[in-house]
């Protein structure tokens, strides 16, 4: 590349586990900037939408400072995600971010990223979807993205945002994965609030993306063979073409499944379990986990024993892990920041005896989830259980 990144390249495990860190009091958006600063990306493409915009402003600052070689604003999210696709096909490590209505505008592109095996990293600062117009936090867009083929990581804290965004590039680029990673963070709740985050202080960054090592050919007229189409379609009305398309879809999902070992290596288990022996267990992702932690403290004061499962990875869905962790639970409470209750549906679909699930509380449209309402639902579940 033409511009020299001022940082020294180090592998991801060094970055995550060995590099010196220092606590900084920063917002979630700033945590994304700090991850991207050390991700050694080639290009970032932006388009404004609240509450994502601040993040891509900050990535723009990285461009101005020389940490990102190329950066521009596209004309809409569908175009931006398509520009991102072109950049990835031409051999670049790419970053972008969007949310809510922007996600919906770009939607056709996400399964194409997966089908084209593009290791794009996209952050989603989740927000509600029109109509009526809303800019408030809501995780409804994740319900739509579940079947796009991309890996989906859901951050609880700014620390998660920092670590997940940094690791996402390497997980996405693993040769047996090479599909997009969406890093989800609840808009405003974690993007615009400050917390202490352990930030790497050494002048180090990830190794450069090497398109020659990718499992799919780069479109640059340097990679053989010359007669090459990304991505060829077999559009005949016969069995062979149906099989070609079916196996292609299976392979994208298999790639996501293969990402599990890499996610475990860099980010730990796909779910985090606290107090698994408790008769009542809350299953949550994103900032609903933080609210659950507060509610569990309140429950403890009333001598109610409640456990917690934090779902960090939504795709590939940690089915076996969740089923095992819930094997002894009497009641399972699933609080969510959306009307669809997609996490409750996901858990219900894999769980034997899913009548144990209490799919509340569910708040949306920007509403908050006070721990007290979660506590009420815990108490009600426990009452029913003992009746």
């Amino acid at each position, binding site marked *: 590349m033409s511009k020299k990144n001022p940082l020294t390249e180090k592998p991801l495990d060094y970055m995550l586990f060995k590099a010196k860190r220092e606590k900084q009091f920063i917002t979630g958006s700033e945590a994304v900037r700090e991850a991207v600063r050390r991700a050694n990306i080639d*290009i970032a493409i932006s388009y404004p939408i609240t509450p994502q915009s601040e993040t891509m402003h900050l990535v723009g600052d990285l461009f101005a400072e020389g940490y990102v070689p190329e950066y521009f604003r596209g004309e809409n999210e569908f175009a931006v995600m398509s520009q991102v696709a072109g950049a990835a096909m*031409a051999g670049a490590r790419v970053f972008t971010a969007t949310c809510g209505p922007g996600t919906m505008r770009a939607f056709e592109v996400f399964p*194409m990223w997966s089908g084209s095996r593009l290791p794009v990293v996209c952050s989603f600062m989740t927000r509600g979807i029109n109509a009526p117009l809303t800019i408030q936090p809501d995780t409804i867009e994740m319900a739509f993205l579940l079947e796009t083929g991309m890996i989906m990581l859901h951050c609880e804290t700014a620390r998660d945002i920092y670590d997940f965004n940094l690791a996402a590039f390497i997980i996405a680029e693993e040769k047996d994965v090479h599909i997009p990673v969406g890093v989800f963070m609840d808009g405003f709740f974690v993007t615009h609030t400050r917390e202490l985050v352990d930030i790497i202080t050494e002048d180090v960054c990830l190794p450069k993306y090497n398109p020659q090592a990718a499992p799919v050919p780069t479109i640059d*007229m340097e990679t053989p063979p010359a007669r090459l189409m*990304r991505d060829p379609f077999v559009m005949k009305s016969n069995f062979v073409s149906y099989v070609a398309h079916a196996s292609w879809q299976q392979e994208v999902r298999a790639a996501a499944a293969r990402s599990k070992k890499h996610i475990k290596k860099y980010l730990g288990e796909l779910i985090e379990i606290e107090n698994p022996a408790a008769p009542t267990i809350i299953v949550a992702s994103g900032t609903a986990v933080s609210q659950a932690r507060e509610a569990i403290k309140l429950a403890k004061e009333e001598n109610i024993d409640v456990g917690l499962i934090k779902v960090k990875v939504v795709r590939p869905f940690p089915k076996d892990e969740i089923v095992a962790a819930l094997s002894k639970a009497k009641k399972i409470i699933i609080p969510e920041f959306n009307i669809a209750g997609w996490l409750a549906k996901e858990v219900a679909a894999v769980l034997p005896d899913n009548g144990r699930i209490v799919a509340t509380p569910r708040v949306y449209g920007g509403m908050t989830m006070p721990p007290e309402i979660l506590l009420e639902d815990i108490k009600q579940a426990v009452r029913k259980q003992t009746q």
Partner: protein
Amino acid sequence: MSKRITEMCPALNDAMPTEYRELVENGPWLGDKTVKDLGTFKELLEEHPLCAGCNLALSLKIILSSLPNPADTIIVGSTGCSSLGFMQVGIHNIHSLFGNQNAVATGVKRVLSMRFPDKKKDVVVMAGDGATADIGLDMTIHSWFRGEKITTIMFDNELYANTGGQESGMTPAGRVAYMAPLGKKFPKINLFEIAKTSGCHYAVLLTTANTVRLGACVKKAILLARDVGPTYVQIHTPCPTNLKIPPEESIKVAKDSEKERYAFNEYVSEAAKSFLENTGNKK
């Protein structure tokens, strides 16, 4: 590109299809061919599933024989009849989605400029009128506004051919088509004029009837995109299948249109003019 990309592993040489061997040995990759050289080299596209008498197929053949540097050319296509021809094309090309071709090309061009600062990689968009002027119009025009150094080529058959012949924005007013059962109610989009005022340094309106001129204009458009800025080539490619034209008469229909809406028209910006003068390429 390095010549390595076309060379076969010697052990597999016998196993490769004859036509691929011919492409390696006598393809146009490393030479600057023109339409007049057709027949003396192995073409980048010789077989395709497009209909008999298809003007799009003819113009594709002419374009691929007129690339100034096929060894370093990347094509971005779009969904439609044209996409059916690209799987057999002997250079790197992308089919992504319907309408996003100029956005994908933007990403490709930006990255190739960074990855290969000492090489000129030509990025050429080829798509139909629906992809370019309807569903992808904002991305077409915004790539021009931004001054992306890519060539946009529109195959204008004045309808959605691959889906069965529906009205498009490029259909002339009054014509009856699917989805316009009483005839089209508004005029053909004048994308040629829009290109002139949207940042294109070269725009040309022409048909498949004059193949030598078509080849020369394509070459000029790509050379100007490489060094000056965005360029636009709009080719009338009447569709024999949907317009019920006998295949042998389809070029005549294109030629007839040169007397009216497709009269040859070429725009060259001042910057492009001085570039052509300085490089001695005034054709």
